[in-house]
């Protein structure tokens, strides 16, 4: 056996960079296979000099693959370790490599989806969006920078981890770590979702429930204010001390609901959407229906 071929840090960085394009040729036949082989090409070039071995490796990695795009990184790391062993003469057959890929992609996708799509992105997105809605450019910048720092760090370190640990990674991951990460992410995610529903789902029922004439002294008596700037000052002071602007107290349906539980209607709406989604109603249909409800409700004066 000649000198041992190993992948340098530069090779591994090149693979990590290319894995950014993992989903580029996502297709209904073998899903991420094209991106997978695209990512591994620098390693294949380095490890196999013989044309036949190269062809075999390319074909081997054009098999079906699909997982969450970021958690593919540890799988890539493990695969690099296996390919390196194989190139150095270890008896690693194609089935073993494919088995590791398929064995890891399912459980890992189960971690990637809740952690990235359901926890990190909604939280950072809501954070950025709440700033952006006030017209602040800081919102988008914060979202973009934080997201990409987290993503790069995660992809690089998990790929390196997979490469170092090799196939033992499956033991490490099944030893409760995966479940812990997933559970922690769902706790955080559910907590934040509860908060987001309260804050950002908006329904406003406009019908007036009651109009009560307020007693004297409970509202600002506009006719008896001093004239000029002094009058404005007095009015503002009275307003700040809790006096009403109008002689009548108007209570809308929304005020009643808010005094019961703030955000109660948004909560009901969300539960309704969940129920509909579970009944396999397409999200698109629900979205369109809600727009129709919004327009119809506005026209009849309910919303």
């Amino acid at each position, binding site marked *: 056996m000649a000198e041992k071929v190993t992948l340098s840090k530069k090779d591994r960085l090149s693979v990590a960079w290319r894995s950014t394009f993992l989903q580029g040729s996502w297709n209904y036949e073998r899903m991420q296979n094209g991106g997978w082989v695209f990512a591994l090409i620098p390693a294949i070039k380095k490890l196999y000099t013989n044309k036949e071995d190269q062809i075999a490796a390319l074909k081997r990695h054009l098999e079906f693959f699909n997982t969450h795009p970021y958690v593919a990184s540890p799988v890539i790391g493990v695969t690099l370790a296996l390919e390196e062993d194989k190139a150095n003469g270890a008896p690693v057959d194609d089935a073993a490599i494919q088995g590791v890929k398929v064995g890891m992609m399912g459980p890992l996708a189960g971690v990637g989806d809740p952690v990235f799509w359901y926890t990190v992105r909604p939280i950072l997105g809501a954070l950025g969006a709440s700033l952006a809605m006030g017209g602040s450019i800081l919102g988008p910048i914060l*979202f973009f920078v934080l997201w990409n720092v987290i993503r790069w760090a995660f992809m690089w370190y998990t790929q390196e981890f997979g490469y170092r640990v090799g196939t033992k990674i499956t033991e490490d991951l099944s030893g409760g770590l995966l479940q812990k990460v997933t559970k922690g992410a*769902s706790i955080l995610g559910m907590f934040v979702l509860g908060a987001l529903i309260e804050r950002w789902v908006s329904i406003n029922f406009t019908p007036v429930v009651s109009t009560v004439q307020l007693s004297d002294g409970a509202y600002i008596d506009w006719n008896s204010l001093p004239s000029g700037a002094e009058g404005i000052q007095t009015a503002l002071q009275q307003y700040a001390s809790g006096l009403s602007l109008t002689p009548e107290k108007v209570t809308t349906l929304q005020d009643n609901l808010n005094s019961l539980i703030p955000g109660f209607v948004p909560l009901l709406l969300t539960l309704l959407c*969940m129920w509909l989604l579970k009944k396999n109603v397409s999200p698109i249909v629900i979205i369109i229906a809600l727009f129709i409800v919004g327009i119809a409700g506005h026209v009849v004066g309910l919303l």
Partner: protein
Amino acid sequence: MSFISVILIVVVAFLAGMEGILDEFQFHQPLVACTLIGLVSGQLVPCVILGGTLQMIALGWANIGAAVAPDAALASIASAIILVMGGQGEAGVDTAIAVAIPLAVAGLFLTMVVRTLSVACVHRMDAAAAKGSFGGVEAWHIIAICMQGLRIAIPAAALLAIPTSTVQGFLESMPAWLTDGMSIGGGMVVAVGYAMVINMMATREVWPFFAIGFCLAAISDLTLIALGAIGLSMALIYLTLSESGGSSSGGGSNTGDPLGDILNDY
């Protein structure tokens, strides 16, 4: 709009289209896509507001497995272009959102078409691999990515080719009851995204945290960052406690965790 702006908008659209499938840098997220359109067209602030508002609606849209979510890329790019061309500034945001939703659906079909076309690319990659041609494999992968980019860039260019006056005429012809109603609908549509996310994550064990989050959010002094910190702390506490509880009861099951019991007794 200047020639350079038009070119840059198409480039941004291309990036957003690529990202719509790659899901890496997040150029396709409304927050980023609308901001970039605003940046290159010189109407930054209205576009940032549009991006923030659309982002709230799109929070729960994610590609899971083979399923594809409504397409944030086309929705953000096209609605931002319409906002810019309409020339109404911040007042046009509501209308732009109303236009964005049907576009998200249209984009969904476009991406499905491209994903089907990509099957052909992969077959070319097979052929290239059989010949041991690294360049061929790489080229077809890049072609597939570019098709995803064109998916957004072409509709964006088509929109830009429509005379500004036509777009403005169309926007002005929309009656107030329709745009107001649409913006009310937009406030409710946010719930669909959240419902999708909850359906994926909810187990009996984590529902109490949802309730706590919901109640705490009513305290308007708490910023989102503060809420995030509380949530993270609770998750860590819960994991630590359920571990120690699990080891003492030997089973490690849900019944063994003290905090869970406390929450259940609520």
